[in-house]
């Protein structure tokens, strides 16, 4: 091989070697690049995953921290709220103590207690009917309520009057809480009133001869009125920060409710818009006939109280959403109670009143005692014993067939024109039927015994109401002779409480009339021994009960001197 050929060959080999190397290197480089890329990608992926994991961990930790912080804030808020509530109650206790020691409140409580004792010890309050006794507890708390109004008002104005607001304003408990505490401070006074109401009612219920059924709603009204008046005092102080506002309100209210009266009387719906709707007539009625929306009225009072308190709290500067929501709820309660209570007497009650007035026998329970039958509304059946004792005592003094004559004692009432109607019952025309009312004790006993005697002598109540002759002497002697103090009973059964002259004699239905002469004869007879006069009554029964007998003749038959003229009932 020539040198050029060798050079050429060597060059070719070298070229091939270079190409091969380059190819190999390129391949290796490619492979390396691929590997590097893969490595890098793996690294990036790992870094990304690590970053994501880190971020997730951090987010989790942040979330945990945030939750922990929120929980701490929540716990702190809850703790602060508990603290504020405890402070509010402590302040309410402090204010309540101050309120109970205020002179007007002390005087009102003393007066209220005296009123309960005085009222409950009255003889006319014996034999109570509990559906009236519950309502009778409502008057006294009114005065306690007025004291609460005045004193709570003054207590709220205290900071302003003595210029302590600048100091108290930077203390922890805000003004709204102080307002709420003043309203709550009336609660113990209301509880004391409730204790008074409970004592008064229990005292009545434990009296011998108590009957009927009290209403918890009626009993609740008095304490609620105290709360309402206290709340009004607090609200007024926030509305009109002047010491004269509360006394002025009391005077205006007095003129409105007591002086003007209208429209707060009768059984109209409007009467229930006033705090108290006593609606007391002179007669008692079965509880089923009352138709008083006392429960709704209590709801109305509670709603009014809450409304007044929450308004006062809002006026004290709070913007709490809960207070505004509570105010809306309180207003709803007030409107609901107010609307329902003013609906008037329900139709079913009106129908029941009509039935009890016209056909009482449909609702009554009858009991036979001796020769007499006693028909009473179910709540009055425990009183049959008292009626029977009176009937038996009167009958024991009579003569002829009257002694064993079967009487029907029927309880009657007239609720057709409402419960406030004071009209007397019409006398019964049924022979041997005696009317008895729903009241008992005191004057009602001689009134009933007069009715029994009048029916035994005259035959029926209608005839008895027209008596104007000597029979009246026998009627009155029979009615009074058996009683412990006959002359006192005579005085009480006469409308003018007199012992001389002519008089109207009360009975469960229409009254009877006594002339002056008859009064003299009866008084003379009452001074004589009962047994001696009874013998003469029995002996001359036929003539003494004759329509033709004069007072002079009756006196003669009964053995008392009588200088009386002709019987003239108009005398």
């Amino acid at each position, binding site marked *: 091989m020539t040198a050029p050929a060798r050079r050429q060959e060597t060059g070719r080999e070298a070229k091939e070697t270079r190409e091969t190397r380059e190819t190999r290197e390129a391949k290796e480089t490619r492979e390396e690049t691929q590997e590097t890329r893969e490595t890098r990608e793996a690294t990036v992926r790992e870094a990304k995953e690590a970053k994501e994991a880190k971020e997730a961990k951090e987010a989790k930790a942040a979330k945990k921290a945030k939750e922990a912080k929120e929980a701490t804030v929540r716990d*702190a*808020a809850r703790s*602060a709220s508990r*603290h*504020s509530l*405890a*402070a509010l*109650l*402590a*302040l309410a206790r*402090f204010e309540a103590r101050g309120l109970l020691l205020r002179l007007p409140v002390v005087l009102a409580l003393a007066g209220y207690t005296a009123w309960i004792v005085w009222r409950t010890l009255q003889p006319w309050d014996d034999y109570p009917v509990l559906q009236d006794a519950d309502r009778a507890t409502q008057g006294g708390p009114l005065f306690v309520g007025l004291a609460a109004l005045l004193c709570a008002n003054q207590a709220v104005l*205290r*900071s302003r009057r*003595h*210029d*302590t*607001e*600048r*100091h*108290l*304003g*930077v*203390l*922890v*408990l805000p003004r709204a809480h*102080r307002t709420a505490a003043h309203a709550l401070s009336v609660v113990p006074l209301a509880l004391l009133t409730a204790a008074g109401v409970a004592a008064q009612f229990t005292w009545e219920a434990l009296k011998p001869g108590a009957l009927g059924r009290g209403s918890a709603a009626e009993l609740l009204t008095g304490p609620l009125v105290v709360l309402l008046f206290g709340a009004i005092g607090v609200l007024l102080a926030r509305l009109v920060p002047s010491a004269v506002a509360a006394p002025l309100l009391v005077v205006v209210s007095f003129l409105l409710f007591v002086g003007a009266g209208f429209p707060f009387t009768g059984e109209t719906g409007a009467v229930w818009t006033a705090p108290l709707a006593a609606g007391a007539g002179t007669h008692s009625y079965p509880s089923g006939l009352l138709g008083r929306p006392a429960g709704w009225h209590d709801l109305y009072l509670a709603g009014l109280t809450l409304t007044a308190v929450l308004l006062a709290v809002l006026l004290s500067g709070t913007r709490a959403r809960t207070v505004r929501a509570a105010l809306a709820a309180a207003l709803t309660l007030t409107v609901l109670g107010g609307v329902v209570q003013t609906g008037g007497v329900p139709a079913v009650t009106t129908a029941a009143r009509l039935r009890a007035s016209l056909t009482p026998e449909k609702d009554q329970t009858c009991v036979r005692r001796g020769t007499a039958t006693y028909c009473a509304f179910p709540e009055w059946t425990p009183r049959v014993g008292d009626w029977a004792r009176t009937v038996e005592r009167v009958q024991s003094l009579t003569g002829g067939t009257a002694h064993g004559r079967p009487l029907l004692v029927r309880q009657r009432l007239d609720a057709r024109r409402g419960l406030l109607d004071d009209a007397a019952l019409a006398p019964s025309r049924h022979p041997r039927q005696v009317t008895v009312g729903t009241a008992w004790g005191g004057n009602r006993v001689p009134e009933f015994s007069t009715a029994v005697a009048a029916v035994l002598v005259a035959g029926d109540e209608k005839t008895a109401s027209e008596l104007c002759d000597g029979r009246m002497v026998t009627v009155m002697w029979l009615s009074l002779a058996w009683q412990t103090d006959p002359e006192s009973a005579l005085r009480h059964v006469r409308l003018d409480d007199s012992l001389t002259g002519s008089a109207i004699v009360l009975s469960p239905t229409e009254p009877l009339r006594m002339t002056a002469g008859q009064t003299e004869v009866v008084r003379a007879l009452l001074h004589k021994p009962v047994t001696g006069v009874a013998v003469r009554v029995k002996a001359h029964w036929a003539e003494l009960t004759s329509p033709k007998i004069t007072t002079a003749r009756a006196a003669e038959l009964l053995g008392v001197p009588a200088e009386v003229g002709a019987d003239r009932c108009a005398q």
Partner: protein
Amino acid sequence: MTVTVSASGLGLRYGSTHALDEVSLRLRRGVTGLLGPNGAGKTTLLRVLATAVPADRGAFTVLGHDPATARGRQELRRALGYLPQTPGFHPDFTPFEFVDYVAILKELTDRAARHQEVRRVLAEADLADVRGKRIRKLSGGMRQRVALAAALVGDPGFLVLDEPTVGLDPEQRMRFREVIARAGEDRTVLLSTHQTEDVAMLCHRVLVMAGGRIRFDGTPAELTARAAGRVWSSAGRDVGAKAGWRTGDGGFRNIGDPPEGASLLAPTLEDGYLLTLDGDLAEVTA
């Protein structure tokens, strides 16, 4: 020592008047006196710090509580004892009842513990003997102590006292100093007063306010030192004196820039205070 009360840039205007103008301060535990002429803004500053009125500008914290939030304000009030300049009282209350009432408003709810605390502060204010007497029957000094007891009840960490010794006789003031000094041992007390002796005797630090601004913030010694070489005596009133008055010995005590060769006197805290006010200083004449 840790900063307990910190305020920066507090400002409050009443109409065109700057009651507070860029007031910044940092208080620590102990009694700090606040001096200044009438209308300087002392009471306004105290009322702002006591959260009675909000500032128009600036911010402050008390014991770490920021009154800018409702919660912070409540927490601050829990840590606050405040004796206003003219405290009101419920005259029909007894001191015990009044302080008990304030204690309840400070959320001391446990009755037994609260009554114990009330008895403690009444004893501290030297009122134990009259705690059952009606406030209306107490003297002015005793009433002032009732207000101090009300401020102290609940062991507040920050006590704000606005001229508590005004109108008190020397003996009553001395008693007050005792109570305030005790209170300052473990609390931050800010005491506004016109009595430079009170500051000299009680305070580890003093602030001087005028025109709604802080004019001086330092120790009483530093305030006194401001008058070093600027108080001198002379036979008559010196024309160059910023203030001067005849003393009991018949000579004149002058404050200001003394003439050459003047007979210099040892300065008092009051001298330093008067010189600090300078432009706000009303001329004191004999």
